[in-house]
């Protein structure tokens, strides 16, 4: 069975490489608002003020990391899954001897990997321009913590995406979910502003939402704000979210399959 997923991964990779220019342009689209945020931050610091407890170089690194990370651990509705359910394409997958979840997981993350390679290149250039440093100030320990967290955050992000996409079993149109998330997520995940500068009450809520574990915490880890004790408690919290969404998605998938009529 693993050979199927490897083959699928290779095939998706080939398809993704055809659209490499599109990937670069798509990431540049995200980079332009980021430029505005960084210019604003530099302007504030040049006036002798400071945003929260952040040093300017750390804030620049945070913003750039958050932009890349939010693309890799993005959550939303995935067009492929929604369409499979809406137009009956799911039939094709259900009669085949593989897991529909893992099939989509592989396609999704292979596409993301290609995208992220281009994103890192563009983000590195942005970092050099804004901070003036050719080598990012990231500790090896932070990279290790980030890698461990990524192993849990990636399935969590996909689980949430899968969960939202299979809502298509119950609703005729799930595009609205995607649109709402596109507006809400940058704000509540810490992509636009670090969550620790929010007013205390809002902050308490936002830092416990799954979106914070996908953008805010991974970016803070890269900037180097965590010791191992804090890190392990963070891992436990992410694992709890993972288990919660695993159960929720399983229930929804089971119920959805029951009402699925296998017609377009």
């Amino acid at each position, binding site marked *: 069975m693993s050979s199927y997923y490897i083959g699928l991964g290779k095939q998706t990779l080939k398809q993704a490489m055809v659209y490499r*220019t*599109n990937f670069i*342009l*798509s990431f*540049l*689209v*995200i980079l*332009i*608002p980021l*430029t*505005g945020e960084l*210019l*604003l931050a*530099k*302007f*504030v610091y*040049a*006036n*002798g*003020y*400071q*945003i*929260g407890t952040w040093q300017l170089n750390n804030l620049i690194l945070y913003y750039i990391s958050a932009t890349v990370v939010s693309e890799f651990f993005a959550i939303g509705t995935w067009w492929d899954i929604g369409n499979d359910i809406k137009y009956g394409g799911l039939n094709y997958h259900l009669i085949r001897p593989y897991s529909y979840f893992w099939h989509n997981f592989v396609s999704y993350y292979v596409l993301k990997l290609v995208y992220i390679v281009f994103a890192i290149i563009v983000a590195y250039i942005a970092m050099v321009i804004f901070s003036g440093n050719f080598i990012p100030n990231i500790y090896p320990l932070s990279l290790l913590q980030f890698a461990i967290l990524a192993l849990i955050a990636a399935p969590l992000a996909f689980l949430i995406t899968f969960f939202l996409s299979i809502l298509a079993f119950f609703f005729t*149109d799930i595009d*609205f979910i995607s*649109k*709402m998330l596109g*507006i*809400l997520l940058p*704000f509540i995940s810490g992509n*636009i*502003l670090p969550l620790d*500068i*929010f*007013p205390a009450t809002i902050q308490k809520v936002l830092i416990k939402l799954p979106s914070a574990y996908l953008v805010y915490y991974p970016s803070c880890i890269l900037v180097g704000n965590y010791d191992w004790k804090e890190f392990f408690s963070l891992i436990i919290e992410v694992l709890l979210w993972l288990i919660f969404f695993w159960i929720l998605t399983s229930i929804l998938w089971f119920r959805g399959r029951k009402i699925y009529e296998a017609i377009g």
Partner: protein
Amino acid sequence: MKDYLQYYIKSNILIIKRKAYFSKSFIMEICADIINIIFALLFYQILYLNVGKGLGIPISDLFILVLSVKLTGDLYNLFFGAGVQSLPYHIQYGTLDGLLIKPFNIFFLMYLSKLNWKCLANLIIDIFLFIILISRYEIAVSLVSVLSYMAMICFTTLIFTAFNILIYLGSIIFVRLDAFISLLSSFFTLSTFPAAIFRNSFLKWVFIYLIPVIVIGNFPLMVIRREQKGSLFVIALTITLLFSLLAYWGTMSMLKHYKSASS
């Protein structure tokens, strides 16, 4: 003129009938827009709570800046957006033929004949937000400043429309240019930032005359704050004329190269 008016009214009544049919999605879209603008205002509110005067201008001005950009965007989407954005579709699938054979000016048919009714609701929300803003921050406004502001908003809307027409005209050369369009359009997200952050004079020049990002949000703010000199209106008028002429010339040149049917 009478024929044009009849065509305009009839086609837009049909659009509103269609919108009424999909009323749920219509309401959802408006809700999404409201949340969007609230978050844009919250962004500055949170920053202001942290750095106060470090932002360089008062919070009320930042809110006016954000609302001015939204107002320009909503006016563009209300009157021109639907037509401009359908240009790549017309070229890709050859449906421009249907417009070319109609006995109306092609510029009118392509860009000016479709209203986006959702944005009418957005305009009402914008006015409501402006009233709250003016009363909450006790912003002194006079009839002259309101009229000047509205005139500047008309300029910025025309500039934004002409710029978008120029971007979408690229579809005559490239069959798929979605990512390119998104890239150029994304520059306008910078219009919600105060002009002071563009400290490099070359960057400032680019963002006024080439990609008029600063014009869209900051010029209306300068007008309402009575920082306007005659030169501000002269610059705005010049840019409006320049971009409008370019858009018109570009459209007419594009039509000469249009090959019809999925060209």
